Structure formats: C-alpha cells, structure tokens
C-alpha cells in the first residue's frame, strides 16, 4: 500500500519530466525548421506585432520624450476618439472613404467581367494574347506614372483633352483640381489600371466551365449571345459573388497611394480619406495620439468587415475552388 503510493508520487513528477523531455525532443528534431522561421518571426514581431501593441498610444497622451510605454494615459481613455468624433473631419472623412471605395466597387466590378467574356469569345489566339498583354500592363505602372498620364491627358493648360475642348470653342475644364471631377478621375484611373488584371480570375473561372454544355447548346441552336447569357455567366456567378463579398470586406481601404499621389489641396473636401488624413495629422502635424485613434478606428472596423465577408464568402461561394 505504502509502496505503491510512494511510486505514484514519484511517478507524477517524472511523468511531467518525461513529457517535457518528449516536447524537447520533438523541438530538437525540428530545430532546422525553427531556425528557418526565426528571421521571419523576428520580422513579424518587430514590424507587425509591436505596432499592434503600439496602438495603445491611441489611449494615451503620447509624448515623444516619454515613448509609448512611458506616456501617461489619456483621461478619459476615449478622449482622442471623442475628439475625432466631434471634429468636423469625422463625417467628411468617413463619407469620402466609403463613397470612393463604394464607387470603385460598383463601377469597377463589371468592366473586368465584360473584358473576360470578350476575351473568351475571341478565337484568334495571337490577338487574344496581344490584347491581354496590353490591358494587364497598366497594373504594373505606379500611381506616379498614372499621375503623369493624367496630367498629359487632363491638365488644364496642357492636357490633350482640354486642348481639344478649347479648339472646339469650349472652356477648359480643371479636371484634376476641381471637386466636381476628382472622384471620377480616381475611379476611372483605377478601372484603367485594373481592368485586364481583374479579368484574369474570371477567365480562369470560365475555363473551368464544362465544355459539353456549350456543345449541347450549339446542337439546340443557341446563338453565341445565348450561350454567354445562359452558360458562361451562370458558370462564373459564384466567383462574381465571392469577389464582390471579399471586396466589401475592404471597403475601408479606399487606396492611400492612389489618392495621396493624385490629390491636391483644392480637392481635399472630396478626396481626403481616413488614411491620408491620418498620415497628414500624425506625421506632418505630429499629432500622434489622435492619428493613432483614427487609425485604430479604421483598422478595427476593417477587421470586422473582413472577417464577416470571409465568412459570407465561404458560405456562399462554397465549392468554387
């Protein structure tokens, strides 16, 4: 009796020890892999996760001297959020962010689909690949290049479009500096940049449609247009829905680079979005806590939207890929 309890008592710590040794052995066995992961993990911790911890400055009165940890807490803790909410910027920035993003979503949705359908109908191989090559290309041009192109086309005194307008007897139009046209410029340039690139995924989906469907339709005397409408489009419907949902998840991202590069002071009222404002307020006016609060506000809503949209996409887009 006494002896068994003794051995049991002795066994307990040794069991724990052996489990530890077991874990140690597996880790040792995979040490090469962990060594490979090390630089990457260090990168993620320093440049991705410490900044996530750094968002606490949204709840502090950040002071450069004291640093993130040393700065004193804001009182009340939501002070900077409240300041933003009560500022005139709140509704303007939120409206601009959502509107620009929404316009891009709606107007940017169909051109790539149309492009994919047309390319799919194109039977001449070399022509198809030529057009594809040409229309993908803008995707790789930076927004600065696109700004250059927009200036060449639309600037008020030297743009080719305004020269035509003036030659035709009209008044030149400040396309790039007027609040009336700026959002159209944003959306239009985005479509120009991404139409060919966006078509790739639809083309892949079309390639996955069962070809016997088309043969059967042809036997039944369907026209090409009929086939597009009744076979191709329904065939890629789930991809369309899925991409739409996934894009809705990113509705808070109206595109920092594009807007920052293209905008100017005259169009701030219609072009300034959360990201560009955070950049100006935080880094140019050194208002770190307020800017972080706004950044956190945006990231938190963005996270929620992405999670919701991913879940919806998984439910409705099931079995596509």
């Amino acid at each position, binding site marked *: 009796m006494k002896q068994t309890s003794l051995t049991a008592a002795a066994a307990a710590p040794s069991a724990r020890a052996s489990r530890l040794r077991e874990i140690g052995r597996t880790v040792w066995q995979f040490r090469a892999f962990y060594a490979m992961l090390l630089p990457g993990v260090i990168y993620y911790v320093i440049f991705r996760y410490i900044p996530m911890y750094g968002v606490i400055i949204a709840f502090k009165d950040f002071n450069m001297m004291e640093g993130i940890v040393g700065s004193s807490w804001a009182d009340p803790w939501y002070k900077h959020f409240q300041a933003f909410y009560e500022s005139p910027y709140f509704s303007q920035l939120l409206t601009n962010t959502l509107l620009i993003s929404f316009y891009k979503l709606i107007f940017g949705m169909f051109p790539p689909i149309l492009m994919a359908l047309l390319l799919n109908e194109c039977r001449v191989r070399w022509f198809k690949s*030529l057009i594809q090559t040409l229309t993908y290309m803008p995707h790789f041009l930076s927004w600065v290049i696109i700004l250059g192109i927009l200036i060449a086309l639309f600037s008020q005194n*030297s743009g080719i479009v305004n020269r035509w307008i003036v030659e035709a007897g009209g008044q030149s139009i400040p396309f790039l500096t007027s609040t009336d046209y700026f959002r159209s410029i944003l959306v239009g340039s985005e479509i120009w940049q991404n139409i060919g690139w966006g078509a790739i995924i639809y083309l892949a989906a079309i390639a996955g449609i069962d070809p016997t469907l088309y043969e059967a339709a042809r036997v039944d005397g369907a026209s090409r247009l009929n086939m597009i409408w009744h076979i191709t489009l329904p065939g890629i419907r789930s991809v369309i829905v899925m991409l739409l949902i996934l894009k809705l998840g990113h509705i808070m991202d109206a595109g920092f680079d594009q807007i920052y590069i293209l905008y100017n002071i005259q169009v701030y009222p219609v072009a300034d979005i959360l990201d560009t404002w955070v950049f100006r307020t935080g880094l140019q006016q050194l208002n770190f806590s307020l800017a972080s609060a706004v950044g956190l506000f945006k990231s938190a809503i963005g996270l929620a939207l992405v999670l919701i949209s991913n879940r919806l996409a998984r439910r409705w887009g099931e079995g596509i890929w």
Partner: protein
Amino acid sequence: MVKGLEDRVFNSIVYLILALAGLCAVFPLMYVVSVSITPFAEVLKNGGFILLPKSITFDAYRKLLTESGIPRAFWVTVFITVVGTAVNLVLTTLMAYPLSRKKLPGRSFFLLLVVFTMLFSGGIIPTYLIVKAMGLLDSVWAMILPGAIWSFNVLIMKSFFEQLPEELFESARMDGAGEFRILWQIVSPLSLPVMMTVGLFYMVGHWNEFFQAIMYVTDRTLFPLQVIVREILMLTQQPLETVENMTPTETMQMASVMLASLPIIIVYPFIQKHFTKGMLLGSIKG
C-alpha cells in the same frame, strides 16, 4: 446562312471592342512618349495632337539626366529594388518552407501569426514609431526592412511547396541531407516558377516604391525615383518650391514619367505570363 452572318457580326463586335480596349491601354503611354521626345516649342505651337512627332529630340532626357535629382534617385531605386528583392526572397522562402511541412509542431500557430497581419495592423503611426525606434529613419533600409515579407507571398510560396512530392524530401533525408541543404539544393531549383512570380511581385513593388519613402525618408538624397517624379509633375499643378531651381517643361515632365516607367515597360512583355501564374496561384488559396 443567317447563322453565319450573325456569327460574323458578333465576331466583328468582339474584335472591335477588344481592339478599342487595347488602344485605350497603350494610347496614353504612346502620347506620353511622343510629348517627351517632341521639341518643346513644337508642343506649345501644335497645341494638341502629337502622336507621331515630326521632329525628334532627346533634349528633355538629356536635361533630366544632367540637371535634376533624377540620376541619384534612379540609383536609389535600383539599390532598393535589387537588395530589397533579395532580402524579400530569402526571408519569404525561409518563412514559407517550414510552414509547408505539415508535420511541423506549432505550424498552425506560425501560420496564424502570418495570416493575422493580413487582417489587422497597428496602422501608420505606431509602425512609424517602431521604424523610428529602430533607428531606420532616413536610410535606404527604411524602404526595405519594414516591408521585408508580404504575407500574401508567403502563402503563394507555401502552397507551391506543398505540391512538391513527399518522396523527394524523404529520399534526400535518407541520403543524410539536412533541411537547409534540402531547401537550398533540392527545393529551390524546383521552385523556380514560384520564385520568379514572387520575386517579380516584390520587384515591381520596390520599383514603384513611394509610400515608405514619404513616411520614413526626409533626406532628399535618398528619395527614390517615384517621389522625385511626382515632385516634378506637381510643379505645374500647383506652385511648390522648385526642385533644385529647375522649372520643368511639359516635355521634361513626360520624359521623367518615361524614365520612371521604362524598366517595367521593357521587361514586362517577357515576364507577363509569370504574373498571371502567380495571380492564379494566389487566388486559388483565397
């Protein structure tokens, strides 16, 4: 026979629209090229359509290459593109390869570590403070290190590595090769397609570098090409302080646009199919 006619009309419409789309994609660039090589006097006089310039001059390019900040910016961009892409590829491969080994204990933890950053980020300001604390402000490394790994590219590579046959690894291990050696001598050569794709994504990203430069760099001598070109472009849009006392003409502006896009336009046709492959690889993982 009605059918044949209908088909022909349909085809013509398809080809017409596609041709128009192709033209829309290249026309603006061709126009930029033409303006950049037309003598400025002719641009002013002509006041309109110059698609094929009557006389050609490379004055604007010569001026830009001798009198502006462009050459220095060009080398900064070349540096961050070459070194940055190398850093990206090494780190991304080292991250993706262990993650592709299904038996690795803690794999899902590391995967979560990577994927979560695609969903949430600390935002511009806290990231800036870290870069500052690391002492990277005003150095070329500020344009390389903070973006050293893109999670999306880790996932592309990981899904490629997962497709490699398991026997490959087992036989190599049997022959006594260590994991680093397997990665370097067996996996890497087989992974050329994905290395190419991911490398190209990184390269284009570095060549077009703008965001990190304006965030972390205030020293003008370290500005990459895109930042300088934007300054040159903005000069006529609104009066700013001049770039080194140079008032760029329209032809010079367009020449600067060409210089900033030329490398991409030149290599693009040769590497285009890799991008497509990468895009599809990435989307399959969703």
